[in-house]
């Protein structure tokens, strides 16, 4: 059985995001099995701002809390603004298994853009508030897919397969990717604004 991921009430964004990543990672049976045998405390902090969280591994439960615990065995410092930057780790020598497990927990596998978009839009479209139809166009090869019915899409997202997969997986916020030019959109601000709510819920694993 996969360990449960618990968070505190009124959790801050980094706690919700870390918990969402952990839940996705724990869908891998081999990792879930390894985590279920672990005990230890891992702190995660942002290199750029005061955001921080603590993962408490206690067999069947992984608890995510705000702030860095004073008794953390391992501390991982991540540049949240640069996903390609190498994390800095303290405590890895003494706790190699814990460090590797935590790193894997924070990096769930990302599927194809089609699979990730399917998961995101299926969740979002369960709400009547979600704009529809939605179309995604992969600029690598021109393939398209549409969700929420036929006809002219109300929002159309264009991008490379890699960027689409990251954005649709909840590892980044879709509208932020668009506003920063990593993805492109055909649509309007009103619907992009509504879609933002679903993208944030997705990031938090609350969709």
């Amino acid at each position: 059985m996969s360990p449960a991921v618990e968070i505190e009430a009124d959790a801050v964004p980094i706690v919700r995001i870390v918990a969402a990543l952990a839940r996705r990672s724990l869908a891998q049976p081999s990792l879930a099995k390894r985590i279920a045998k672990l005990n230890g405390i891992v702190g995660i902090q942002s290199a750029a701002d005061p955001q921080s969280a603590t993962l408490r591994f206690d067999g069947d439960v992984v608890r995510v809390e705000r702030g860095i615990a004073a008794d953390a065995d391992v501390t991982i410092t991540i540049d949240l603004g640069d996903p390609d930057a190498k994390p800095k780790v303290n405590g890895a020598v003494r706790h190699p298994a814990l460090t590797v497990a935590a790193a894997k927990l924070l990096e769930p596998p990302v599927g194809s853009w089609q699979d990730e978009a399917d998961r995101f839009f299926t969740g979002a479209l369960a709400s009547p508030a979600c704009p529809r139809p939605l179309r995604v166009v992969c600029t690598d090869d021109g393939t398209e897919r549409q969700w929420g019915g036929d006809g002219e899409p109300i929002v159309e997202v264009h991008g490379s397969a890699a960027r689409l997969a990251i954005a649709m997986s909840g590892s980044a916020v879709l509208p932020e990717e668009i506003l920063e030019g990593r993805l492109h959109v055909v649509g309007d601000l009103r619907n992009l604004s509504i879609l933002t709510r679903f993208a944030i819920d997705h990031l938090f694993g609350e969709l």
Partner: protein
Amino acid sequence: MTIDDVEAFLEAHEIGRVRVLGVTPDALPIGKVLSPATFLRAVEGKGVGIADFAMGMDRIGEPSMGFTAPWRSSVIGDLHLVPDLATLRPVAGLDGMAGCWADVHAPDGTPVDMCGRSLVKDLAARLAALGYQSRFSFEIEGQFFEGTAGENRAREWRDLTPLGVGGHIAYLAQDIHRLDPIMTEICRRLDVAGVPWEAWNAEAAAGQFEINVEPRDPLTAADHVLTVRKVTKEVAHERGLSATFMARVTEDYGNGLHVHHSLVAESGPVFHDPDGLDRLSPIARHWIGGLFATLAGAASFMAPTPNSFRRIDPFKAVPTHATWDIDNKSTALRVLSESPGSARVEHRMGAGDLHPHFAAAVLLAGGLAGLEESLEPPARFEKMAWGLPDGVGPTRLPADVPSALEALDADVRLRNVLGDQFVDYWIGMRRFEWLGFHTQGGDATSAGPTPWELSRYFETL
């Protein structure tokens, strides 16, 4: 005021330009300065056009995302600032300028639901239909610092130096000689602006002051708060100082904005009853019952930002639990009932950074629900309402943005009166602000405000 009256006003005061200001959902004044001829055309027509994104951005100009409303066009469209001529006054300190507040309307002429002025008018009309008028007065607290806002911004808000030495005691006279020249000019300008100030005093934090304004109808009283903020900042800037009304600027006492209010009927004030329980009339008890039932739901309006919640500190004059009592300043609702003229409710949850129109609206909404449902308040809390142990006695009030939003989301009474669209938009805005705080540099665990808070709120409040 007819168009001829407006023309006569402009001529009599030798007005060469008119500042027309609406209010954003973050309580920022926005508008244009018009030539007299353009102003007259705006009065006779649909108002002054502004891009709708001005109402749809957060306080630092980023588009508020995650929610929408019918008045936000699909891309960028226009809204209209419709001048409220009852507020037209000369602007002291800016020779030849007049100013007025404006309602924000959609192109079809309907008020935008996030226009606080329009919302307060609606609720006041609803109360009038029951035979009552309300009288509101805000206790406005702010702080002065050495150096202009620009100079403090250039230092990235480090080493903020409050004006005066402070004494951690409210009313202390030791800094009055430093405050007096500034406050005298502020009060002179408030006189010109038609703001009936009553008194000012030094407050407990260094550089802190409080201004009291006479009670008026809720729309006028809320307008007065924004006028006081604007005039104070203008005077401070001219004197090489900066002023802010953000809720917590330093680790010292924060800035509050307590809201006093009462109801009157044609016969006079209606809260006092010499024979009633606690000398309160049934109307007063129902009103208090409604306010009490919506205390938690109202929290995000009384404390809208992460910085607002830094003010919540037991024994620092900020309520922490859902309580009411007669003349007890530790409770959330302090009720006075001694005489017809003084009987009123002081809602003490308000932080200095609240939107005064929305705050008035949410109190009217709670009170109206109380009247319509004949709600009764629980027993008075006749003890000190600070330092209470968890799980004992009254319910703790929301102490952060998410719990305040959760309480509002679940408050059926406030939703019924204020409308789902307004409530959902407000929740979306506040959630967006909370996300920004946590993901862009804010830190709820820091002892005092973070640079993120100071850069976002110091100048805009």
